[in-house]
């Protein structure tokens, strides 16, 4: 027969300060952990959709990213005519682009922000089929730009018609676009020639090409990598996005690692509490055993006590972690939102259970192992 839960609860209430401190300690740890899981989920959501399967990104050989890549204008002569590139009637679907990171000023704030701008031609919209203009009118020309949803937030919630400043010039926002959750949503799209002139660049950053058939991807990539007229690296658009997402996820991973190490410290604290509880109640344990409760019942009772403490702390901590929901963290050009929803909360509560079991198991076993005579003898 199991020891009634009332006993456990009353024991906890008897030592209020110790109970409170342990619960708060677990709560603090679970709160941080829940927030970190929320950050990881926010990152995953931001970089979830990984681009079109039939697009290939072409960069300067060895470049780390599009913004650090530089291709001479003449490279288009080779890239456009590589076998496998789609030819849609009147034009070849190869989009030259300039990716650059200007200090950008938005109306209503003097502080410039670190944004990513992409200069494109009309063909870009045929290649980047994830881009949908949801407000305003599509197309970039002159100093008209399109701002992605993520960029819109990073600029403080700008709207169609607002003017932003880049490279000492004013650009007018002609529309807001969605890009299926890809990195593109953090960018500002501008006219390629206009942006190159404003930024004083005479080379492109990269090309994005659409394949005739998805199956041609490997062959086209191999041809581009091996071409001696242009020194480029080619990869599937999905692979490119996956590797840039990895850079951001490091932040969330480090956060998670730190919170796990601190959790271990909390487990030590929990064990401390439980060992003391057991030591202080030796005579009670002896009495319970003498009355007829089995060793197992004692073990379960103390384990239950530990779990009660940790789950109480877990609930408080998860609730506190929920406060982080919706917070934004700027990481480079991206702007990540903490997503503390059912996933993060469940993880937090699960951690609380683990802390409770880990902290309570050894002390509970110690309690169960005591012989009746020794226990009764303890003062």
């Amino acid at each position: 027969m199991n020891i009634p839960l009332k006993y456990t609860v009353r024991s906890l209430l008897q030592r209020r300060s110790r109970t409170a401190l342990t619960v708060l300690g677990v709560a603090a740890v679970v709160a941080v952990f829940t927030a970190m899981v929320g950050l990881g989920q926010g990152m995953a959501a931001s970089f979830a959709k990984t681009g079109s399967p039939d697009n290939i990104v072409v960069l300067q050989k060895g470049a780390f990213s599009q913004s650090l890549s530089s291709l001479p204008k003449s490279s288009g002569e080779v890239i456009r005519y590589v076998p496998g590139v789609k030819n849609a009637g009147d034009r070849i679907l190869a989009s030259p682009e300039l990716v650059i990171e200007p200090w950008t000023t938005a109306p209503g704030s003097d502080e410039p922000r670190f944004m990513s701008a992409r200069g494109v031609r009309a063909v870009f919209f045929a290649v980047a089929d994830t881009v949908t203009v949801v407000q305003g009118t599509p197309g970039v020309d002159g100093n008209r730009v399109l701002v992605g949803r993520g960029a819109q937030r990073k600029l403080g919630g700008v709207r169609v018609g607002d003017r932003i400043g880049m490279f000492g010039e004013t650009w007018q926002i002609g529309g807001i676009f969605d890009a299926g959750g890809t990195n593109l949503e953090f960018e500002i799209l501008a006219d390629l020639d206009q942006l190159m002139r404003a930024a004083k660049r005479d080379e492109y950053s990269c090309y994005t090409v659409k394949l005739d058939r998805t199956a041609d991807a490997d062959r086209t990539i191999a041809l581009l990598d091996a071409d001696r007229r242009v020194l480029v690296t080619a990869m599937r658009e999905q692979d490119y996005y996956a590797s840039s997402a990895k850079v951001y996820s490091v932040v969330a991973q480090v956060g998670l690692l730190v919170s796990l190490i601190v959790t271990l410290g909390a487990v030590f604290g929990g064990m401390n509490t439980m060992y003391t509880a057991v030591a202080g109640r030796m005579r009670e344990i002896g009495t319970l055993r003498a009355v007829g409760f089995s060793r197992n019942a004692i073990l379960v009772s103390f384990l239950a006590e530990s779990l009660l403490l940790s789950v109480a702390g877990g609930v408080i901590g998860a609730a506190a972690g929920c406060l982080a929901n919706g917070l934004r963290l700027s990481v480079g050009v991206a702007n990540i939102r903490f997503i503390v929803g059912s996933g993060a909360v469940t993880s937090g509560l699960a951690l609380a259970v683990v802390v409770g079991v880990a902290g309570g198991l050894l002390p509970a076993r110690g309690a169960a192992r005591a012989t009746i005579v020794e226990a009764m003898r303890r003062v």
Partner: protein
Amino acid sequence: MRFLPLILKSIRRNRRRTLLTVGGIGLSVFVIAALLSVEAGFASLFNSTGESVLNVYEKGLACPITSRVFDSYVSTITSVPNVVGATGVLRGIYSYQSKDHLVTVSGVDFDAFRKLKPIVIRDGNGADFVARGDGALVGRRLAADYGWHVGQTVSFVEDRLTIQVTGIFSSDDKTYEGGVLLHKDYLSKIKRDEGRSTYLIVAVSDPGAVASASRSIDSALATFPKPTTTQSERAAKQLELMALAEIRRMLAVMLVATIIVSIFGAANSVSMSVRDRTREVGILRSLGLRRSHIMQLLIGESALVAAIGGAIGLAAAAALLASAKSLGGMIPLVLPPAYAAGGMGIAIGIGVIGAVVPSVNAARLRVVESLRLVD
């Protein structure tokens, strides 16, 4: 201090509790020390900037590595009043063996560079460096991290860049000490950036001239093909790290959360130890010890345990940092003595703060009651 024997004895009385408390605080201090070392890395980049040195970057760009200015600007700049010297630096980031090992490479005009940024060659010599087009001077920290030595050929993944290590140097400027110096001619050919630099270093006659010289340079170059933005080196570094500002804030929040968790743990531990010794406290009081003595005893015990945990945590963190390379090739990861002392201070602080409430309660107990308490 006369309570020390008493403190030591009571620590030994309940070994398990002491060990668990030490372990808990040790883990927290380990995390705190790691976070502090990242902060120290950031700080060291600022402190190593010269007071009368300016950086000239391409205007309007947020990512400094993508900046490009023309070397021909140097002649215009040197004719600006108060300017003592100017030279260009071409920067590149290359991976050594894998993308996890990033190395910052700076192409410089060695003679001019040495005048503005003094470097001390520890191993090898400058003459060899000058003699070889593909020669390289490796910063001391970087050479230690990867085990490079003079005479070695090092190849990087990108651009098939290959260099010959002709010397190891140290410098007050930590940004260069963590990287490689090459000849600008060599690097610019490989990067197809002939005649251009990532930024120019300009030395002015005294710190007071920084602001006016910056303005003069920018206005002199305003009509040139690529206008510039000039500021003190320190301000330039601050802008560079602004992209990471929010991450630093997040690290600070985690630091605070870690400290709070350990304070709870320490408080818990002390209150448990007090409970065990209520009768002992009563006896001590009846022997004549005053309330303040009791508090000293308890707080001292907690501080000592925390200090031991802190020492272990710091040692573990130092061991980890010794094996970790710098962060992204640009932020050095070290735990300077000042920060280590700060970490120990935090550990002791945790022990003291955690102990305050329980020891005040213990001291307040009336002698008769505490003698009467059996459990």
